Structures are given as structure tokens and as C-alpha cells.
């Protein structure tokens, strides 16, 4: 085999990998993807709940992997199995707790401002996908509780006409949804959500946005940068 001829520096490459790389770096430069700090207004407890949701999700996936590896006899019959089963369940409770507070906070600060509509929409879709991801866990327990819930819930699903697409009493289907399809969807959507936050910056408080608007119009606060995450770096 001979070595491939070197591309002259002046000739722009048409390779799809180069195009993807250039688009990626243009959309998310490294300093924006992994910034040194956040604006000072982010130093507030209400901004903590987004990362708390991600932390909970990591615990959910970690504990879920453990109980999936060991199997239902382990998680039903042994002390350590009970412990990891409880960690899995309570991390889901915590996930929804902090995610709802995160949602309330972003709603009341109108986090879709400044071209952040896709950030808001992906967050809302994560919530909607996470609900069936959690509920399929109830019917994947492999006990009488799961049987009771699946037979009750199938009637609810059939009453709204979605029972034609999936069957809550089909354990294999529900288990696949719970440990594969829906978690993949949640993780992908969370990844897109976080990348969009990195790209657009964390939404500033209302009063700061007014100052930025004044800066764009050449007003007295013209020292502020309109596009960069405002409020100074912390």
C-alpha cells in the first residue's frame, strides 16, 4: 500500500467528516462547549435544579445497570438487592422532584427568551418521554405489584386508543421500553438540551435582558456584550 497523497493546504476538503467538524465547531466552539465559568446571575439556587436533574439521571442509570445485571431474584430477595432497588426507585422520585422545580423556575423566568425556544421545547419533550420511561418501570418489577399496575393501566391506555401500539401486560415489550428504548431517548434528548444550553447560554434575568437591549440600541449600558452570556463570568 502506498501512502495517500497529501492534500494541498490551499484546497478546501470536501470530505463529509471535515464538513461535520466545521459545522460542529462553528455551532459550538470549544470555549462555549466547555466554558471556564458561568455568568454571575447563575449563582442562584434556582439554577441548581437543572444539574440536579442530570445528577439524578446518572444515579438512575447506574443503579438500573446494577439491578439489570443481577436480575429480579437478587433485587427482590437479597438485602443488597433491596438497597439498589430502592436507590433506583428513590433516584427516580428525586429526578422528577428536581425536574419539576427546574421546569417551574424556567417557566417563570420565560427561559425561551433570546432564541432559546429549542432549549425549552427539548426540555419539555424530555419531561414527556421521562414519564413513560418511569411508568414502564412499575410494570417491570416482576411481582404482584407490577401485575396489578399493568392490568389497571392497560385499561387507561386502551380508553385513549393507544393500546393498539403497545400492550402493558406484555412484559418483554415493557421491559425493553424501560431499560433500552426510553432511556436512550431520554439521554439523547438531555444531551441535545444541554448542548443547546451551551450554545445559547443560560437565560439571563429579565432586568439584565433590558440592559442588553439598551446596549444594542447604543444606550447608557453599552458596555455589555449582547451575544455572549451576560452578567460577567464567575
Amino acid at each position, binding site marked *: 500500500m502506498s501512502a495517500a497523497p497529501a492534500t494541498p493546504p490551499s484546497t478546501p476538503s470536501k470530505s463529509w467528516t471535515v464538513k461535520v467538524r466545521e459545522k460542529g465547531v462553528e455551532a459550538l466552539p470549544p470555549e462555549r462547549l466547555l466554558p471556564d465559568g458561568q455568568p454571575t446571575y447563575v449563582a442562584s*439556587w*434556582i439554577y*441548581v435544579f437543572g444539574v440536579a436533574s442530570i445528577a439524578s439521571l446518572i444515579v438512575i442509570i447506574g443503579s438500573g445497570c446494577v439491578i439489570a445485571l443481577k436480575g429480579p431474584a437478587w433485587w427482590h430477595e437479597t438485602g443488597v438487592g433491596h438497597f439498589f432497588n430502592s436507590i433506583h426507585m428513590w433516584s427516580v422520585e428525586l429526578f422528577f*422532584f428536581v425536574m*419539576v*422545580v427546574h421546569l417551574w423556575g424556567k417557566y417563570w423566568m420565560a427561559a425561551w427568551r433570546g432564541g432559546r425556544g429549542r432549549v425549552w421545547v427539548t426540555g419539555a419533550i424530555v419531561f414527556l418521554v421521562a414519564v413513560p420511561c418511569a411508568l414502564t418501570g412499575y410494570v417491570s418489577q416482576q411481582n404482584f405489584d407490577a401485575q396489578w399496575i399493568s392490568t389497571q393501566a392497560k385499561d387507561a391506555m386502551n380508553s385513549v386508543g393507544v393500546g393498539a401500539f403497545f400492550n402493558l401486560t406484555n412484559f418483554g415489550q415493557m421491559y425493553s421500553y424501560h431499560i433500552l428504548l426510553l432511556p436512550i431517548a431520554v439521554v439523547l434528548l438531555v444531551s441535545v438540551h444541554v448542548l443547546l444550553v451551551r450554545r445559547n447560554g443560560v437565560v439571563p434575568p429579565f432586568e439584565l435582558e433590558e440592559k442588553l437591549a439598551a446596549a444594542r440600541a447604543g444606550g447608557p449600558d453599552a458596555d455589555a456584550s449582547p451575544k455572549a452570556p451576560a452578567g460577567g463570568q*464567575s
Partner: protein
Amino acid sequence: MLGAVFNLNHPAHTVDWHFIHLSVANVVVIGLMFIAFFLAILLPFPGRSGREAARRGGGPS
């Protein structure tokens, strides 16, 4: 039930008001979420004043 801290071997206690029908457990969780939300708004974040002072002074933060 032996492992449960509370006796769960009874129908759930519920809060009923007009069409609203919630279990007490869910009402407690919703209440805790409201408390967490308002505390997150009201409580000062550690180190925030120092960061703002550093930013106004133009020094390193």
C-alpha cells in the same frame, strides 16, 4: 409489610375537594416541591456577593 416503616396495608388516605382527588402522599410531595421552589428563590447562594463584588471591581473571580 414487615419491612415497611409505616403500615401500608390499608387503602390510601386521600384529599378530596370538588373534582380534585389526590393521595396524601402526592399532596405532601407537591407541597415539598413548592417549598423547594420558594426556598431556591429566596435563599442567598453561597459566595454570590463575593463574585458580584469581584466583577464590579474588575478583579479575578
